[in-house]
């Protein structure tokens, strides 16, 4: 009996009120059991086939299933006996955890297991510094920290159980501003570790000489805010153990190899016992690059012997996943009468939030790119990244590049205005050229900054008086 026969049987037991569509064709997916394979051709890309790219409309091999609503994202998956997990969030920026009482939650019908930081075999992880707990131990470092997790037969019961968990805190004074965090007298967020946990300096030429030769010197400070990736699909993972002590984890995680190492560490299980299956991802943008719920569901699954799923709520996406680093950016630029930049010093203070995550990469990239695409002989750029008791920052598209771009281009506009030079012209006078040296001394090739600027100006009709015509 083939699939269609089964369906006919099924459709016979439901009353068919209207034909599927105007042609009277049967609906492709009956309400009861969504089909997976379809007679509709799926698009299979041909490997190694060279296709013209420029000016072509790009279609995607997964487009058809997306449009049909048949792509299976992780939240569309269910395993028999699966439980639903929810994580209780601290809601306080900095505190000592005195007592976590889960007994009332455990008594609730439908609650199968509860875990706290004490149940995590090794309660720290991170892509570089291992400063992030799976669930809070003795300390809460930001309001989005998890303090306990519940697995229950429904999501609703799990959410209600969180209300029954009581946590006693001794509140501590939080550090909420990166510039305050930078101060030597400020108590360490992760004392005894210092608040500055990353530092980079780039030097080129002699800035003092450059400033001395300058016609004018401009100084300005810029700040950017915290940004969340907001993937449409929330973070989610499902864990299940087999009889031989191997754990399989389905997850929205992008960097599964790294996640596997973090899981081996936090669960204290050899990597060979951990299998990670990355599911079709509904948006990442850098926000799904490290583990979040994975060790929690693995522990709950182990404790209950059942598959456990945890999906972030939208508020959790904002408070308990990584964000883009806010940066305080101080610029000082010396220029000639004609607007040629002779020297530039930059100080960047990146706000790391509670944990390091991908701060080191972001710090380096922001620092290297901070002078902008300009041919500047004398540069001194210094960048720090500091802890605060706020949502952690991490990877996000551009790794620090958009923040510094906002600063150096705003600065450029201010200088152009003060010197009464057209904003396009001042950029053309300073833009990197073929063979220019980058801030780190790399000789650049295929440099098209000027051509790009000129073409763009022509395309949108830049008239030279600061307005597009």
């Amino acid at each position, binding site marked *: 009996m083939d699939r269609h026969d089964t369906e006919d049987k099924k*459709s016979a037991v*439901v*009353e*068919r*009120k*209207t*034909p*599927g*569509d105007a*042609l009277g*064709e*049967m*609906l*492709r*997916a*009956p*309400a*009861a*059991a*969504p089909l997976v394979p*379809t*007679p*509709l051709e799926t698009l299979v890309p041909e490997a190694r086939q060279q296709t013209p790219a420029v*000016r*072509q*409309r*790009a*279609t*995607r091999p*997964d*487009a*058809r*299933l*997306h*449009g*049909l*609503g*048949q*792509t*299976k*994202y992780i*939240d*569309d998956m269910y395993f028999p006996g699966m439980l639903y997990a929810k994580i209780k969030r601290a809601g306080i920026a900095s505190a000592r955890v005195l007592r976590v009482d889960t007994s009332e939650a455990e008594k609730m019908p439908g609650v199968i297991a509860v875990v706290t930081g004490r149940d995590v075999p090794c309660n720290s992880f991170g892509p570089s510094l291992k400063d992030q707990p799976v669930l809070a131990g003795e300390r809460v470092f930001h309001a989005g920290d998890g303090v306990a997790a519940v697995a229950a037969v429904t999501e*609703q019961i799990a959410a209600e159980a969180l209300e029954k968990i009581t946590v006693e805190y001794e509140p501590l004074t939080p550090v909420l501003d990166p510039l305050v965090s930078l101060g030597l007298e400020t108590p360490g967020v992760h004392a005894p570790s210092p608040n500055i946990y990353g530092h980079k300096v780039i030097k080129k030429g002699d800035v003092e000489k450059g400033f001395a030769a300058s016609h004018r010197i401009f100084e300005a400070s810029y700040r950017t805010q915290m940004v969340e*990736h*907001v*993937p*449409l*699909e*929330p973070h989610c993972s499902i864990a299940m153990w087999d009889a031989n002590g191997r754990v399989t984890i389905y997850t929205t995680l992008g960097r599964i190899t790294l996640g596997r190492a973090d899981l081996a560490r936090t669960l204290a299980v050899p990597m060979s016992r951990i299998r990670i299956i990355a599911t*079709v*991802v*509904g*948006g990442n*943008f850098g926000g799904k690059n490290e583990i979040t719920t994975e060790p929690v569901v693995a522990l709950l699954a182990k404790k209950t012997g059942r598959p456990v799923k945890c*999906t972030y*709520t*939208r508020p959790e996406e904002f408070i308990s996943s990584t964000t883009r680093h806010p940066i305080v950016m101080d610029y000082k630029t010396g220029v000639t009468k004609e607007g040629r930049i002779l020297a530039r010093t930059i100080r960047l203070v990146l706000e790391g939030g509670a944990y390091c995550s991908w701060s080191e990469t972001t710090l380096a990239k922001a620092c290297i790119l901070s002078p902008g695409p300009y041919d500047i002989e004398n540069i001194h750029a210094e960048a720090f990244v500091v802890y605060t008791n706020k949502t952690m920052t991490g990877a996000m598209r551009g790794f620090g590049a958009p923040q510094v771009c906002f600063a150096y281009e705003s600065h450029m506009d201010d200088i152009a205005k003060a010197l009464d030079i057209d904003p396009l012209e001042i950029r053309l006078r300073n833009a990197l050229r073929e063979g220019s040296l980058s801030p780190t001394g790399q000789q650049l090739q295929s440099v098209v900054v000027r051509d790009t600027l000129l073409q763009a100006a022509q395309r949108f009709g830049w008239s030279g008086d600061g307005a597009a015509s």
Partner: protein
Amino acid sequence: MATVTLTLNGDVRTASVPPETTLLRLLREEFGLTGSKLGCDVGDCGACTVIVDGKSVNSCLMLAVQADGRDVVTIEGLATMSRLHPLQQLFEDKGSLQCGFCGPGVIMSAKALLDENPDPSEQEIRDALAGNLCRCTGYSKMIEAIQAVARDGRGEPAKSAV
């Protein structure tokens, strides 16, 4: 438990659910129709959009019991065994979706619009999609696809491909 009887993609269906169950959870968990997505559960993102009695609705904001006796169409109700819905076809041809998570909701909003207004202006399309957030695409190719479907529906020659 509350009993809900509704017409779902043309079939009359019944389920018994806790009274707090949303229409979205009824569709996804009781009927296994996972095409409608949960992006926020509070009516902000539109990933859960379905059509109820001809109107696009955030199914996360509607209780299952409120759908009792009504006609519900989900993304699974558009294609037939042999044919994609024109919106699905054009979204594919124009590369309108990237990660796809917002796609079912966007397509349902677009369908509700075209059913009511076969000749929408670009602004009307934008208004119809105002409740659907997409984080990947920037919307322009979705709007192109919807305009193309509207043109085809009115029997106007399709503009050159691309």
